[in-house]
């Protein structure tokens, strides 16, 4: 076998093994790589005792419609993912994009089945369009709810 094809074969095996090992590492670290859990994940994890309630975690989802309550500086709202929901209590500054049905990520701890947050970040989705287009879509009833 000439050295060129030998190098080619070695490289091929090298890349296959590298890809495979990367895949396995990422797969086993999945729980650490996800930036946030959805309310469904959280409830599953609480049921199966997989979660350390004394540790800070992040949960993400959409702000539920008509669930935002403000009392002075304290604010509470529900985060839902279409299946499950969780009540979030927060005391601080909200990002500009915070509104009903907007994606948000909250950092905090679970306390008495509620989530007490110390930081709220807003997500924005992958749709880009001018305001006139989104207004028209909403008017015509073609506006896609972000989850359904």
């Amino acid at each position, binding site marked *: 076998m000439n050295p060129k094809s030998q190098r080619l074969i070695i490289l091929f095996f090298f*890349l296959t093994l590298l890809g495979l090992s990367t895949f396995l590492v990422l797969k086993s670290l999945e729980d650490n790589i*996800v930036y*946030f859990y959805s309310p469904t994940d959280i409830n599953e994890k609480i049921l199966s005792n997989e979660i350390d309630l004394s540790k800070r975690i992040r949960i*993400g989802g959409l702000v539920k419609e008509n669930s935002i309550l403000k009392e002075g500086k304290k604010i509470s709202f529900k985060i839902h993912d279409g299946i499950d929901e969780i009540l979030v209590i927060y005391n601080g500054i909200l*990002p500009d994009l915070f509104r009903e049905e907007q994606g948000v990520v909250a950092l905090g701890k679970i306390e008495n089945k509620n989530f007490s947050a110390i930081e709220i*970040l807003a*997500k924005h989705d992958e749709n880009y369009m001018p*305001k006139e287009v989104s207004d028209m879509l909403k008017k015509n009833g073609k506006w896609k709810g972000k989850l359904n």
Partner: protein
Amino acid sequence: MINYLANPNRFLNFIKPIEFSIGVFSFLFIFIGLYLSLFNSPEDYQQGDTVRIMYIHVPFAWFASFLYFSISIASIFFIIWKHPFADIIARSIAPLGLIFSILTILTGSLWGKPMWGTWWVWDARLTSMLILCLFYFAYIGISNAFPRKIDGSKPAAILAIVGMVNLPIIKFSVDWWNTLHQPASIIRFDGPSINQEMLLPLVIMLLGFLFMSIFIILINIKTNLIYKKYQSEILKLG
């Protein structure tokens, strides 16, 4: 064709007449693209004017990844066929890619602060982009680490090939894991989720970046060829 151009002298003769027009194209496309994206494109329904950062952030990010891909392909050619010109090409791409990856992170954090409410988070997309930036640093470091530059070519090429695994992670991180970064808007199964009026300036910017990258890389290739000649002349003189 590739075999023919793999000779540095023939390559230089080949690019001489087209080089200038590539520069003109890059200037024109970026000029028009910037005008359209800054003054003549609509505000986003959610993000308002802040969306305009997208028109430079996306080209930086795409070309940071694409240039890394080109370096790894050139490195594979160098490792298997031992062609010195492939090494020159890979070395000539690296500084530009590094700058692009740094600017991706900077423009991204300028965008993140007003929209997400934070400059930086350790989510999968942002972290994998940072890793790409570090791979660029490592590649440039290793390829220049030896007194005789050519001694660094092989280890640097192997590093570049190893870093290739990061590229699909960058692209698909937003689909595989929950991230703060939003999923893809342009390359996706059901077509772009970006309005035509906003897609046009972006595409023009991407073309401008393509020409600009080629233009700058050609200059780097010429510089590196001259430097190599200079080094071999010095060796001859002893």
